[in-house]
């Protein structure tokens, strides 16, 4: 039996559980990577990734084969990320931050102490935290452009937005990150 992606999609849409599992296995790393980048911790990343595959399962039969499954998936992932954040904000739940998760799992070996961190690593951590504070739209676009290497036009298509809107969202995100970077540089300079 063919295991090409269009064939898997067709079979999964017709209720073939094995085909659906095949699709999940093909795309789960990408989905999880994006979800983790967005959420910053395993707990929420799994929640988002599960929501994504539930949504895919519900709507596979509406997937149009003239578009890329991966683009369609990106859109579902990003909507799931944004929905997840909104649910948490509206429910008054504080995001389960990476720091809290690190403390819960108590894995000091995987978390180098401050003295062993490189400056670049510190900046990376600071920027990751700042990305986590970006408005969902800006964060989505920044992650898709910077982390996933998608072109502005591809992001616009995947999210159903005008390319100009995507460009403005990216600009706003980068502007904020540059400001955070400069603030960190000043702080680091003061320490020296």
């Amino acid at each position, binding site marked *: 039996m063919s295991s090409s992606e269009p064939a898997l999609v067709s079979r999964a849409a017709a209720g073939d559980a094995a085909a659906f599992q095949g699709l999940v296995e093909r795309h789960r790393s*990408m989905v999880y*990577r994006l979800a983790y980048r967005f959420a910053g911790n*395993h707990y929420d990343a799994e929640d988002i990734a599960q929501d994504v595959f539930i949504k895919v399962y519900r709507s596979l039969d509406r997937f149009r084969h003239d578009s890329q499954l991966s683009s369609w998936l990106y859109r579902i992932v990003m909507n799931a990320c944004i929905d997840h954040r909104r649910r948490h904000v509206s429910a008054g739940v504080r995001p389960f931050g990476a720091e809290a998760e690190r403390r819960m799992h108590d894995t000091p070996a995987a978390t180098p102490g401050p003295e062993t961190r490189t400056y670049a690593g510190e*900046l990376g951590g600071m920027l*990751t935290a700042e990305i986590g504070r970006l408005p969902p739209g*800006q964060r989505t676009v920044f992650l898709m452009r910077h982390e996933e290497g998608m072109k502005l036009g591809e992001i616009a298509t995947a999210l159903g937005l005008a390319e100009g809107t995507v460009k*403005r969202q*990216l600009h706003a995100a980068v502007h904020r990150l540059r400001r955070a970077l400069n603030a960190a540089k000043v702080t680091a300079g003061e320490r020296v």
Partner: protein
Amino acid sequence: MTTCDYRESGDLEAYFYGERPPAERHRLDTHLRGCAGCRAALEELAAIGDALETMPVVAAPEGANWSGFMERLDARLAADAVPGRRGGGRVSAAALLALAATLTLTTLGVMLAMQATHRADAPAAAAAQTAVPAPPSFEAADTAAFQAVTEEHFERSKLVVLGLAAKDPARAGAADWGYERELAARMLTDTRMYRMAAEDRGLGSIASVMRDLELVLLQASFTDDRDPASLPRIQRLIRRRDLVAKMDAVSLSGL
């Protein structure tokens, strides 16, 4: 250091990511030679990229163990069995309608909760207290019932659309339409579900208006409210799509 159009327009990021056509790229190359601010901004972009590259890529649950994830997904899929899927592929409109009705109630709850914490004087707030009839039961989900709930959805959406359309862009600051943006974001999922349900039932008029509404809500919830051009852009979209009139027409005609 003064600012310049390239930095303000987002063209510099597009240049950084290699997304400018050759002619424009050449023009920016020339500009960069004389603009220390843009050169510094590009260096910062590179520094952001370098710093983020030091962060580990996490693309799997802890221990790269997918078994727990897959088990939980299977359990959720079993609990979430969609009528129609096993038997033949298409999700039934009734199932979507039931889901949409649930989402509608959720949205209504959120809207009412938001009223308690947001501006008490918002024009939309008082209207949002209008009682909403209970959604039709799953079994009674026929076309007429579907039209009734979509009409309710249009009525609630009008609060957002009219709220956005009525703002004076010259006077409205970001905070002045933040409430409408929040509502737009929260109504987006419902609108999408109603649109899909309408498409599924072959109700082209409703699906078409839902699509326009979805676009307006999407733009409203995604755009940067500090950008003074955002609100006029959304207002143009509402006018161009003639959205309020279309929602009224669909509600009146029942189609």
